[in-house]
């Protein structure tokens, strides 16, 4: 299909943002956003056009559990701590973080200890971690990055495909094309020197694509399956 036609780009972007582009067409379009700057920009334009409509819906306050869950998932508070200690934010509680700060620090220490215990004693300190989950949030790969090393461990939740490989990508925050970090292990662990791109490129998310054996034949993701946020530790 000729995506270079402005009218076609607009038609696809509009239906993507509206949500009526579905199934395989939607997945293919998501890949195009990642690989084609003009398609990404057209999509942003339509997000501007249409998503102002979302601001016209009558607001509905979510339950306090939503904020509590966000804090837990981001590691700001200890999941086992009594959530009653932490009040949901309001416009008048801008300093409420001071209370949980110690617990957040404790949680971050816990994460650091866990990850350190997974690392060889002489390994350089891990600076970032990511967990790639499937759609049911089962963890498939654990990724840890230090200044010198990229280490990936496949979990037993991963269902390997004999005739396919999985490839890991950086999706740059500046909208540029994804950058390959290599083919992922289907079992066990793989350690490689940390690619320069991990330090030099502002990262939006990591992505995992399904590829023919040996990795992408085009240098760009064939079918993006999962994405994962990179977390500072």
């Amino acid at each position, binding site marked *: 299909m000729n995506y270079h036609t402005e009218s076609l780009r607009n038609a696809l972007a509009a239906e993507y943002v509206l949500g009526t582009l579905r199934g395989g067409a939607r997945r293919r379009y998501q890949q195009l956003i990642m690989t084609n700057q003009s398609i990404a920009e057209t999509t942003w334009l339509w997000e501007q056009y*249409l998503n102002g409509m979302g601001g016209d819906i009558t607001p509905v306050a979510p339950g306090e559990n939503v904020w509590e869950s966000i804090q837990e998932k981001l590691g700001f508070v200890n999941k086992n701590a009594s959530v009653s200690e932490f009040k949901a934010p309001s416009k008048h509680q801008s300093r409420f973080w001071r209370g949980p700060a110690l617990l957040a620090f404790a949680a971050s220490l816990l994460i650091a200890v866990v990850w350190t215990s997974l690392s060889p004693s002489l390994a350089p300190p891990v600076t970032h971690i990511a967990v790639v989950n499937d759609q049911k949030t089962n963890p498939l790969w654990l990724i840890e990055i230090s200044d010198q090393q990229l280490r990936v461990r496949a979990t037993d939740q991963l269902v390997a495909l004999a005739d396919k490989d999985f490839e890991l990508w950086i999706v740059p925050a500046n909208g540029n094309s994804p950058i390959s970090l290599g083919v992922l292990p289907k079992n066990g662990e793989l350690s490689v020197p940390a690619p320069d791109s991990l330090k030099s490129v502002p990262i939006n998310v990591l992505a995992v694509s399904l590829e023919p054996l040996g990795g992408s034949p085009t240098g760009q993701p064939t079918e993006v399956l999962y994405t994962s946020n990179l977390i500072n530790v």
Partner: protein
Amino acid sequence: MEHEELFPLLCAIADGKRDEFAELYAKTSAQIYAVALKMLKHKELAEEATQDAFIKVWHGASSYQRSKGTVLTWMVSIVRYRALDIMRYHNIRNEVTLEPEKDGPTTTIPVPSAERKRLAECIEELDDQQRQAIHLAYYGGLSHHEVVQHLGSPLGTIKSWIRRGLQSLQRCLSL
């Protein structure tokens, strides 16, 4: 107004500031949750979409660009895409009401920005059928086929209403 208020918060969030993240949540969560609830209809799923959206905002604040719309528009984009993913994953087929949801307390409607006022004017200029089809798809997250079931017109007609409505909207907004 809302953008001028929210943009400094997003800049601080990009710098890892949790106070400002809490403030952004306080200012926008009711709007974001309302969008998710309108599409997903189920409280638990709307909460899941809202949580995921704010986590993405925390991690992705530095990737925001003005060309993606105002901060609120960008956040609405994030939660709508997440809601569409959840609908697909749970194979939700939507029955739509365009009435306000009764679930949860409503809060004050924010003052619309100039961009949103213009959008509302342009939507008002659409044919009734085009506007209705686009509203069903946008607010309810309906597919073409689901809009067909709701409006009882043939698929080709529905697709045409939506396509032409979107084209008209773009012409109006580009003026």
